[in-house]
């Protein structure tokens, strides 16, 4: 922000031009964050879906003759594990589960939590009290402990892991959405919409939601990363994907026994988690900047 006065109209014009050029550049820089994130995610998704084309090994095929081969050894780019299974194949196939968690678990909780928070905030009264006490109940337990308890009850497995996440992580969305809705419903444009005789659903979904969605959308990007790590943690604890199915967390868990002799077993799937996590973070940051730019 310059505090000196322009001395001539031409200087004013120059300054305006410089400012708008600066804004264009910063907009591009913001977009680059988003584009990088999307590109990284696309690479991850493509690699996992096209796994059969990228590697000729099966993720579960055992080869007693070639165990614990280090990365860059012939035929095995990322080496093999203690059973002679190809690590690259396991990472690529394992990513399918982790990405499915990132999308499947997150999208369901995003939609469910948003609708519940919107209803609680807009309808208010007893509905609000009931739903929010329910949310408090879930928040009262340490999150991971709760998930572990649910998975332990349902039995380990990928689908039960989904169920556990669906049951618990809608609460964050509901709480964010409710707070946003309570603020939005006192806004003049909502009162004006009601003055036009619009029904509750219309006001909620067509008037409040478009104004409050950015907050939960951005949170969902963070949450997707969290869910991947959660899936990895549950796998690590033996509550997620079951052997011999490949899953990044399970792989890290198995690999830690060999951490001194075969570092690649735990490290490489860990890097895969980091890669996808960074991709989601970049998308979240880029999206936040873009939405904020739209507000201006």
């Amino acid at each position, binding site marked *: 922000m310059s505090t000196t006065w322009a001395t001539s109209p031409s200087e004013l014009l120059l300054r305006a031009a410089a400012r708008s050029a600066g804004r264009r550049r910063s907009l591009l820089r913001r977009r680059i964050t988003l584009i990088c994130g999307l590109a990284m995610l696309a690479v991850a998704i493509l690699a996992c879906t096209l796994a059969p084309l990228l590697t000729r090994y099966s993720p579960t095929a055992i080869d007693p003759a070639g165990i614990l081969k280090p990365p860059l050894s012939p035929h095995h780019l990322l080496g093999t594990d203690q059973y002679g299974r190809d690590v690259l194949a396991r990472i690529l196939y394992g990513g399918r589960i982790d990405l499915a968690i990132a999308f499947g678990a997150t999208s369901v909780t995003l939609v469910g939590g948003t609708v519940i928070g919107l209803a609680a905030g807009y309808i208010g009264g007893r509905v609000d009290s009931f739903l929010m006490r329910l949310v408090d109940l879930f928040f009262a337990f340490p999150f991971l402990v709760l998930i572990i308890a649910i998975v332990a009850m349902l039995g380990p497995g990928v689908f039960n892991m989904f169920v556990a996440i669906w049951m618990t992580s809608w609460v964050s969305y509901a709480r964010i959405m409710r707070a946003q809705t309570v603020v939005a419903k006192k806004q*003049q444009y909502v009162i*004006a*919409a009601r003055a036009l005789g619009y029904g509750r659903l219309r006001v909620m979904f067509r008037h409040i939601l478009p104004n409050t969605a950015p907050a939960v959308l951005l949170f969902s990007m963070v949450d997707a990363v969290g869910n991947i790590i959660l899936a990895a943690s549950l796998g690590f604890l033996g509550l997620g994907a079951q052997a011999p199915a490949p899953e990044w967390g399970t792989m890290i868990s198995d690999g830690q026994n060999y951490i001194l002799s075969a570092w690649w077993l735990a490290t490489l799937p860990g890097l895969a988690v980091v890669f996808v996590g960074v991709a989601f973070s970049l998308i979240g940051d880029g999206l936040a900047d873009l939405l904020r730019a739209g507000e201006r």
Partner: protein
Amino acid sequence: MPGAALLTVRDLRSYLATSHGVVRAVDGVSLTVHEAEVVGIVGESGCGKTVTCRTIMGLMPTRTLHASGEIIYHPHGERNLLGAPRREMQALRGSHLAMIFQDPMTALNPVRTIGDQLVEAVTAHARLTPREARARAVGLLERVGIPAPAQRMRDYPFQFSGGMLQRALIAIALASSPRLLLADEPTTSLDVIIQDQILGLLAELQRETGMSMILVSHDLAVVSGICDRIVVMYAGQVVEQGTTEDVIGRPSHPYTQALLDAVPHGEGRGELRSIPGSPPSLIDVPDGCRFSPRCPHALGECRTWETELIETSGPGRGARVRCWRYRELGKERRWHAHDLA
């Protein structure tokens, strides 16, 4: 010109529960709006004008509001709209009763285009094909005087100026051809020239459609220009009401007189006087006449006597004043509505 009664409000009270106590925002307001009539509600900020409008529309938060009295919208039958089921009010709002707001900048959804919101309003109470709805929306924008309406449909509210937004809001309010429009200080946040244009537009649309209108303002000059009758409110009560000529020409209540003294009129006729003090707290309302603490003519009795609305003119004219000394204080003024610029 006015015909049969369209809206009757009887002894309306809207009390709001707050953490500081009960705010008696509207305390026994009665008024009638006839067909094709423009009624002005005037008063200082915080005297219950907006709450009156919002209570009529059923837009007050129900959990903290205690409302009593009667709101009867005659085309809908002789039933009280206060406490009517939500769906019943929803069906009336927009199609029969519409409202425009004080601050046009915030009354439109910031993330949706003007056209989108206008089309939504057009289709809210009528079955139209998308093409018909769009055509009607463009027609409405054109009618309220927005140039190049088809192009402006794609704009977002932030791309409109305040005056244009108020025009767009008027178009949205009129989308379902309401019988009664409540205009809550529609020009307060606009500059004087735009204010004039908007008022002119409202008056024109009212004449054209034959709808009735309640025009709320703190500015007597604004109200006197286009209203058939005027209701003056003070501290949640009606202190004077009557035809525009009666209220402006022969103000009987000291508050109305004080308001008129504060408005520039004619050419240099006397100085402008402001009213000393400020309106009383509506939580702790003064005894007796509510204007007595600020009234230059107040006597001891004024501070203890309950005041009532007294009929001052012959039957039919409906002029009423809430001052027991109206006979001695009601001066014949030389003012006329057109004097107030």
